[in-house]
């Protein structure tokens, strides 16, 4: 089967949806030349009326998308830098997200915010290395973090077709991935449905985005002593709580690995919900970025603040032994 890269999967999803639905359009910076390799070929194929290179006015073009969506379009905005989501938080959280409720259901705002290469790319320093997916889950924006090319395709398609704002994070640690794929079998992946990447019986590891690969590697390393189940939630909001409960019903032990800052990160929410509502036979643990992390420039310092396989392995071993 042919290899499909993560970025190519995003590109195929955009092209397929633009082909299927003339309301779909793409806004962003330098998307005509596809500087992020996500919008390659779209300008030539669909023209400048549907592929809009925007001035460096992220706040304006984010709300421009809101207005366009209310008026019947289905815009996808590609952001180049995750920190731009802080700049446009007003436009996403306070405008796009609130319009349906505030108008009493008179409007819908089907905008997709696409953030390829989120999180650390190592060496891009403090203002290019954020991973703020928990912030969007917190305010109630549908938030997806695909780990694989197949899921990147399927979740982006579902995001575009959804009638609400959806934000799609493509972690930098995942976008270099390739996958053997039958292109004809690529299909939408529903929002809010997780997936067990590796079945196991002793400990459930919830891994977000690119950390799925780290969790699978650690599970392999520990295979002789601990049977690890790796649960990839794929969507963080709405979260697949039933899927997690099913896994914990088997294992009763939980570790989360999450590239959020620790306080109010999605990892904390997963632990809290499991503790309140699910079967746990041992205290759970989470591996995250530290509180308030700002990633420093130097490689050693950048890596020092990201969740590691060693930390995950230690957490799994502790939780597995705990009574």
């Amino acid at each position, binding site marked *: 089967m042919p290899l499909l890269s993560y970025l190519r999967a995003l590109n195929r999803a955009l092209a397929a949806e633009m082909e299927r639905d003339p309301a779909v*359009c793409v806004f962003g910076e330098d998307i005509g030349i596809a500087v992020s390799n996500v919008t390659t070929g779209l300008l030539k194929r669909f023209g400048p*009326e549907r592929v809009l290179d*925007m*001035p460096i*006015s992220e*706040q*304006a*073009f*984010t*709300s*421009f*998308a*809101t*207005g*366009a*969506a*209310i*008026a*019947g*379009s289905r*815009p996808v905005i590609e952001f180049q830098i995750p920190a731009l989501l802080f700049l446009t938080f*007003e*436009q996403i959280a*306070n*405008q796009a997200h609130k*319009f*349906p*409720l*505030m*108008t*009493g*259901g*008179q*409007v*819908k*705002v*089907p905008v997709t915010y696409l953030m390829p290469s989120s999180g650390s790319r190592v060496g891009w320093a403090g203002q290019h290395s954020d991973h703020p997916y928990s912030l969007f889950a917190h305010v*109630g924006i*549908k938030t997806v973090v695909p780990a694989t090319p197949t899921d990147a395709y399927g979740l982006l398609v579902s995001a575009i077709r*959804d*009638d*609400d704002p959806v934000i799609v994070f493509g972690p930098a640690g995942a976008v270099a991935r390739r996958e053997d794929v039958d292109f004809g079998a690529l299909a939408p992946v529903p929002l*809010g449905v997780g997936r067990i990447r590796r079945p196991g019986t002793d400990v459930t590891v919830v891994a977000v985005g690119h950390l799925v690969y780290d969790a699978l590697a650690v599970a392999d390393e520990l295979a002789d002593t601990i049977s690890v189940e790796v649960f990839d939630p794929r969507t963080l909001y*709405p979260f697949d709580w039933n899927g997690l409960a099913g896994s914990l019903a088997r294992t009763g032990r939980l570790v989360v690995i999450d590239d959020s800052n620790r306080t109010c990160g999605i990892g904390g929410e997963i632990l809290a*919900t499991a503790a*309140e*509502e699910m079967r746990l036979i041992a205290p759970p643990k989470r591996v995250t970025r530290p509180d308030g992390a700002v990633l420093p420039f130097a490689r050693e310092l950048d890596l020092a603040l990201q969740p590691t396989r060693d930390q995950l392995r230690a957490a799994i071993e502790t939780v597995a032994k705990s009574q």
Partner: protein
Amino acid sequence: MTDSAELYRTVRLIRRFEQRAIEMVRSGVIQGGIHPYIGEEAIAAGVCAALGADDLITSTHRGHGHVLAKGADPVRMLAELAGRQTGLNGGRGGSMHAADVSSGIYGANAIVGASAAIAAGAAWSHQRAGRDRVVASFCGDGAVNQGVFLEALNLTSLRRLPVIFVCENNGFATSMRVQDTTAGSITGRAEAFGIPAETIDGMDAEAVLAASARAVARARAGDGPTFLECLTYRFDAHHTWEYSVRPRYRTDEEVAAAWARDPVDIQAARVPEAVRLQIDTEIEELLDEARRFAEASPEPDPAGALDFLYASSLRGRGGTA
């Protein structure tokens, strides 16, 4: 009915609506207060008279006048302010978010300067779909110092979108005088982006209508946006909390002097007395009915507090496990 009488009807309706809404704030029927539009009625009336039924507006925190002038039902508008299920937004928006999309009202917006980019996007989307829609985007003088507003001017001009930016310069951003907040000129901002700009008398509904009609014609001809700075004065409070807080940022004498050019009186003088009295009577009857309707309408069911949060079928978790 003549244009003059129609404009009079609109300014008078807005004035009396606001006065009655203030009474209902004082009596506690309207919670949270309002930002009265009293003194600025001629702008909403003139601009919206130049628009067609299919054209659109975006509004501000001081939006009642815009919403009424564009054609929303005053009865359901007052019910919305009273937080009733029968309101325009089902009691979910209130004074600062009143919307009636079926009348082309894409919502009042509580963040200063926020709606200009939304207006631009709506204009673009309709234009792309081949629909002839002009969007009038209202803002105050405070908005012209907001970054996203200036970004929106650039984007709109760049794409020659059919938008009219209507800046209601009432002299104050809350308590701050425009000369203390605004370097350069307001129209100069628009002109810097290549948008034709005009400063007009915002107390004269017919002057506003004439300038707006020119702007609408430009927009429909594909010549892009126009910026209208409408000089006006806010006769009443920034927000009804001023009645209890009583901030002192202007003198009573200054306010009294401004009333000498009352936009309702200016328009009334152009209408025969018999016609005017007939209009006044109809408006009082309508607003009597609106108040009765609002007070008799049911309050929304608390079980539906998060209805409409998502256009899809998603329901989030509640606040307890």
